[in-house]
């Protein structure tokens, strides 16, 4: 351990929900997108799931909202080291979409892509079992465009760059392909509890 002379840091928070190396951002919710925030209306939004599936399918705003609603209440963790506690997102569980398209037995990974062209890769197992959502509400209100509205992917158990804003689709694959930040040195999975920030962590 390399102690920094004279550094005490802020008051210690004994919060079991705080992953290693993270701090509680409180009410802040920083925006860190690397691209121009798109002007995308709900009427222009679509969500497609294809690749290694039995029935590729595209949903529009209305069709997606016809699926059973689901809420995530909990925490989110950004790789830049802030965490945000007690957030509430509304949308639809990704399981509801995957149940329709039915991934094939060979499917192992997913590239999620945005209406901007942003991409991020995830193991398929991280998107099933009630752990991932397509979210369009935050705190009961429509998700703002700078936070990924009209709809974003939400995978709160991984670092938040995996929760692609302005989600446009999932391509289901039988191998892993690095996405935007992953090609820029970030970790392939991004589990905050194992501090998987960068490739090699």
């Amino acid at each position, binding site marked *: 351990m390399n102690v920094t002379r004279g550094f005490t840091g802020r008051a210690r928070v004994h919060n079991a929900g705080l992953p290693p190396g993270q701090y509680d951002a409180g009410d802040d919710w920083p925006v860190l997108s690397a*691209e121009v925030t798109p002007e995308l209306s709900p009427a222009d939004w679509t969500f497609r799931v294809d690749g290694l599936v039995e029935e590729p399918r595209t949903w529009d705003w209305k069709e997606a909202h016809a699926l059973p609603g689901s809420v995530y209440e909990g925490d989110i963790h950004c790789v830049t080291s802030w965490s945000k506690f007690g957030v509430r997102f509304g949308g639809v569980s990704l399981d509801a979409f995957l149940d329709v398209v039915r991934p094939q037995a060979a499917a192992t990974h997913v590239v999620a892509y945005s209406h901007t062209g942003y991409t991020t890769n995830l193991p398929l197992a991280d998107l099933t079992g009630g752990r991932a959502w397509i979210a369009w509400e935050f705190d009961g209100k429509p998700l703002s465009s700078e936070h990924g509205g009209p709809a974003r992917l939400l995978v709160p158990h991984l670092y938040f760059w995996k929760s692609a804003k302005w989600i446009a689709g999932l391509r289901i694959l039988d191998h892993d392909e690095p996405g935007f930040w992953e090609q820029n040195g970030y970790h392939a999975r991004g589990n905050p509890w194992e501090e998987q920030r960068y490739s090699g962590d």
Partner: protein
Amino acid sequence: MTDTLATFTPPTRFAVPGRIAVSNRAAALWQTATLTEIRRETPHAATYRFAVPAWAGHLPGQHLMLRLTAEDGYVAQRHYSIASAPDDEGYIELTLDHVEGGEVSGWFHTVARPGDQVEVRGPLSGFFAWPGDRPALLIGAGSGVVPLMSMVRHHRARRSDVPLRLLVSARSPEELIYASELGAETTPVFTRSAPPGVPVGRMAAAHVAPLLAEQPEGGWEAYVCGSNAFAEHASRLLVAAGQPVDRIRIERFG
């Protein structure tokens, strides 16, 4: 970076590829950085120069992660843009705003002195990097000028003739970081107070339009850095002035 895997290209409007491949080894390794010099830039910002003997080198626009460790093992880590141009001499510089209540910037501004040691890993991310190849239009506000200054310094050190312009917003001349270093490539915009004869006001279409009117061959690669509010504003100005969205790279604080 792996180069054996093809990457999926989404069927959406644009993709924003990184400018350089990134060394995973450099990103994985924590190194000791020894503070060698502190220079005040403005009332709220100072530059910290570090010796990092095994520094792998960086490109302008890249950042690093810096961590401080307390006696009880408590660690605070933050991403910071690198201010210095690559120089291969094992030194890097960071320019840090004194953030109110900031535990890391607070330590730097009130405790740090030459000889102190911290830890860094990097350089990180190739997305905001400028290798010096394409004409660059740089737009920043406040300490958002830091990674852009690395590009300006690199441009000068190489005596490059690749077109480069810097449009920088500050509250006042006193708050303009690197003021004495800025040259003919730079247009400052002052939002609260300005020297006599210089208008006061927010960055506007009138600042961006002339730069896009004098487009170099192949167009500009635009780099925008600042708060989210500034980045949203500046990127909208760029798009409205005709800059293609896939040629705008944004780095937001946070």
